[in-house]
């Protein structure tokens, strides 16, 4: 049966297609690859849709700051662009995860048996009524489902079956009255004292993806997935609250009962989050990118006011690089929220046009936590916000790519070896941080495993962030850093406002690089092979070792047989460079395809070997052990002596501390 589109819908789709075509392909006059006249394409309050707007949410909510609860009416218009009739619609009720018998909390407990449930974490989203316009009240048709684990106690997904199917091209309008009770912030959403982070707070419809509904339960290790659309949200709350939200504020009305009603409008976004707190200090800045001005709005805690400049600076630096490297940020505003102390569970999170940072009052400049978090969360505006991958099933696509671009941006701002830490002579680069994370879970899970099927929370984090970033840093060695950056730009421009898969990304990299990279993907992305090369042996021996007496001239003409054996310890096959240095200053650079288990390089020279090193540029961070990559002859004891002495001093002080008791 052919799709049956309504006229209006067809027009809308043609309009969207034209807009996307123009946005994606029309080159900028300056040759930057940006669309011509791009400054008119602002994703909020614009006439042109940037995305296939599948959903239209209109929510009228009243927040009770005393009870930390919210009552709302949501009107959701869903456009059936699936090409087939739909009679069943699933919805997320994420807040119900914060209940002791939910799948989320069971997984938390399974991962950490010492975790104890506290009633303050309890949260809920209750649908009081669900009506489908034209079909009547269907509240009784709602039923909770648990598609992932069958947990009958889990209430994070419900579905409703309509009396008649919605034809392709038709729209359906749901009117849902719901009540939220927020808990103390545990994972992303909730309150802390006067602070409230309203995230994942409304019934959100699933995504028709790959021929079926994709609406997973909320797991301890999963994030989110939703369709693009428009959001018109009215939020009524006490007048003293300072509010930040996705979208832009379009109205502010003071009510006679001491409340105010704020109106927000967002377009081409797939989620809506808001926050309120009377104590916020507001700072505003302006970023001028290739699409014009973007307002940066910081909502800082009073005690963190002196860090506002740090936040603002890293935001502007990051936005400039993303704009230059990957593509434009099309929204007119971005809000950065600084959660209060004790509320850091709400920190380090991304929502369309709104991100949360994470800091403390004492944080010195050398510990770049502010910069790491703010950069990372802004990066999600691209890798999740616009390139809206399925975070349930392909978590590495947003977290991994974003962690990789985080390394690139922070290295560019602060320098490669100091982009994460530079304090008291102790340094650390962000790529080192990602690699260190990867080393904790080198071979536990492949990148492409669905987030809720990882071994545990640690493995999920280590693999989706650290290993994924390290895989991409290693991919630079194969195709070049510049090519990978171009591939990311192409991927962004092609898949923004869409839901690409792992294969979409991997194929894009292959297309841009012009290389068949399956050998790499099979091991690094789909597999769990370990990459570890070592110098097994490196030595020089005189060729005339059997001669007992030699003249001075003989000694000068002495020839040495040098042998360097490189060993592939892991199962990951990767071509490597080997650098051999000799005492007379000569250097030999070799290349080995790495396929065999070991390979010997032999030299006949009148000089001895000084050092041998696999991957001398440290360009293969997936190598799980950098220490065995080289052999020095003679050894250098400086590092050992340094560590040993610090250890000695520590023991001396420990001894003194104990001796204080005598």
């Amino acid at each position: 049966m052919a799709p049956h589109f309504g006229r209006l819908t067809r027009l809308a789709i043609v309009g969207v297609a034209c807009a996307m075509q123009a946005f994606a392909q029309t080159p900028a006059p300056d040759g930057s690859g940006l669309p011509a006249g791009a400054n008119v394409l602002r994703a909020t309050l614009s006439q042109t849709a940037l995305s296939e707007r599948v959903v239209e949410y209109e929510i009228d909510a009243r927040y009770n700051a005393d009870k930390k609860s919210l009552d709302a009416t949501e009107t959701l218009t869903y456009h059936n662009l699936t090409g087939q009739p739909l009679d069943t619609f699933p919805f997320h009720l994420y807040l119900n995860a914060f209940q002791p018998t939910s799948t989320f909390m069971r997984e938390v407990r399974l991962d950490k048996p010492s975790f104890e449930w506290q009633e303050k974490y309890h949260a809920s989203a209750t649908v009081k009524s669900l009506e489908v316009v034209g079909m009547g009240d269907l509240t009784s048709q709602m039923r909770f489902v648990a598609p992932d684990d069958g947990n009958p106690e889990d209430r994070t997904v419900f579905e409703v079956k309509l009396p008649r199917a919605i034809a392709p091209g038709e729209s359906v309008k749901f009117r849902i009255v719901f009540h939220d009770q927020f808990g103390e912030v545990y994972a992303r959403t909730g309150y802390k004292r006067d602070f409230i982070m309203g995230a994942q707070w409304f019934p959100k419809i699933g995504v028709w993806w790959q021929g079926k509904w994709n609406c997973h339960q909320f797991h301890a290790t999963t994030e989110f997935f939703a369709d693009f659309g428009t959001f018109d949200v009215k939020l009524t709350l006490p007048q003293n609250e300072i509010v930040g939200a996705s979208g832009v504020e379009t109205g502010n009305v003071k009510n006679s009962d001491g409340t105010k009603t704020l109106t927000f409008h967002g377009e081409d976004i797939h989620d809506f989050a808001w926050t309120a707190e009377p104590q916020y200090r507001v700072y505003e800045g302006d970023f001028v990118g290739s699409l014009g001005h973007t307002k940066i709005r910081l909502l800082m805690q009073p005690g963190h006011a002196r860090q506002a400049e740090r936040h603002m600076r890293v935001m502007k630096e990051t936005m400039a690089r993303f704009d230059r490297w990957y593509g434009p940020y099309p929204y007119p505003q971005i809000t950065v929220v600084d959660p209060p102390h004790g509320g850091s569970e709400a920190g380090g999170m991304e929502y369309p046009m709104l991100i949360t940072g994470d800091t403390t009052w004492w944080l010195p400049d050398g510990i770049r936590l502010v910069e790491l978090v703010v950069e990372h969360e802004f990066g999600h505006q691209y890798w999740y916000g616009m390139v809206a991958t399925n975070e349930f099933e392909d978590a590495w696509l947003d977290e991994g790519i974003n962690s990789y671009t985080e390394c690139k941006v922070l290295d560019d701002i602060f320098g490669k070896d100091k982009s994460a830490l530079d304090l008291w002579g102790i340094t650390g680069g962000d790529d080192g941080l990602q690699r260190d994370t990867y080393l904790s879970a080198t071979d536990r899970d492949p990148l492409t495993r669905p987030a809720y099927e990882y071994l545990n929370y640690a493995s999920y984090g280590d693999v989706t962030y650290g290993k994924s970033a390290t895989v991409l840093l290693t991919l630079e060695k194969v195709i070049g850093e510049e090519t990978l950056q171009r591939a990311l730009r192409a991927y962004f421009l092609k898949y923004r406002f869409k839901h690409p898969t792992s294969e979409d990304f991997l194929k894009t990299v292959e297309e841009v690089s012009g290389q068949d990279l399956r050998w790499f993907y099979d091991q690094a992305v789909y597999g769990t092979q370990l990459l570890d090369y070592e110098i097994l042996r490196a030595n020089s021996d005189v060729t005339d070792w059997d001669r007992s007496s030699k003249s001075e001239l003989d000694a000068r003409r002495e020839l040495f047989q040098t042998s360097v054996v490189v060993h592939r310890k892991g199962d990951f096959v990767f071509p490597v460079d080997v650098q051999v240095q000799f005492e007379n200053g000569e250097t030999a650079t070799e290349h080995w395809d790495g396929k065999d288990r070991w390979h010997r390089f032999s030299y006949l020279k009148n000089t001895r070997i000084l050092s041998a090193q696999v991957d001398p540029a440290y360009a293969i961070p997936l190598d799980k052990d950098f220490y065995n990559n080289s052999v020095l002859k003679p050894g250098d004891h400086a590092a050992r002596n340094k560590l040993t002495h610090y250890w000695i001093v520590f023991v001396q002080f420990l001894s003194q501390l104990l001796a204080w008791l005598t």
Partner: protein
Amino acid sequence: MQKETETNWEQPMKVESNGVLSEGARRVWRYQRILWWMFAVNALLALFGVRPGAEQFGSVLNYSQHAERLSNSFDVFAFLELIAKPEIQLGSVNGGAVCFAVVFFFFSLFLTGGILEGYRAGRKLRTAEFFHACGVFFWRWVRLTLSLVVCLIPIMFLASMLFGWSADLSENAAPETLGFWVLLVGALLIVGLSMAIRLWFDMAQVHTVAYNEQAIRSSLRHALRTTRQNFASLFWMYFRISFVSWLILAIALCVWSRMPGRMFGWSALMLEVVVLAWFAARLWQRASETVWCERWEVAQATQLSPARPTAVPSPSASVSPTAG
């Protein structure tokens, strides 16, 4: 041996405190052999303690170019990678270090009698005299240390409560820094309290040596009274010396943080000087306490009734190899 004389405890006595610290410092300087021995033994034991760790570190670092990230600078992720390697058994390394720290604890406990006797004598003791004093008082110090530990248990309990409380305030109190300030003030109070208790036990040790007191409880009672009556001047004396040692540590750490990573030879030397300074400070405290006690005894003697002459212990002959 002199036995404790009857004293008019109800009358607080004025002790001439001027010059106590300088006289204490003079005695430490005069008897600096103790300082050097303690430092040397401490360094030697620490060296033994870290030897397994040094070997483990060496097996990985000595022939690897990646080690430059630790010698030329200090890359924290290179260090984390190092300690995550199976060759590095941090548990056994730590265990060895703690073992040698415990050995030094007993060594220090053993020497305390000789040290106090030396400061009391105001002269260099002969080796036999020194070790005799060490032996004579050793078991008393064991008993005294056990008593000290018992006294410190409530302090540790308090400290644990303080940490919990401040952590809770840091999470939940409206002022963000409240938890920190509570922790800081509480920690200062706990440190102060611990110092006061240590001072009391120091005075008990000085008393035990001065009067060759066998009964630890009696020494503690006596020292408690003395310390309580003269708390301000004694604590001020103790605190000033501690402050000097903390100041030296703070300055050294400040300098260390600015030293280039490759200059670890100099930083090693500087940190050893700090260790030495801390030993000197502790010995200075002990010597000053001994001097203070001597002056207190003199003041006590002058206040006693002529009908009840007091035998003030001779600084030179409280313990001898033939006595006790």
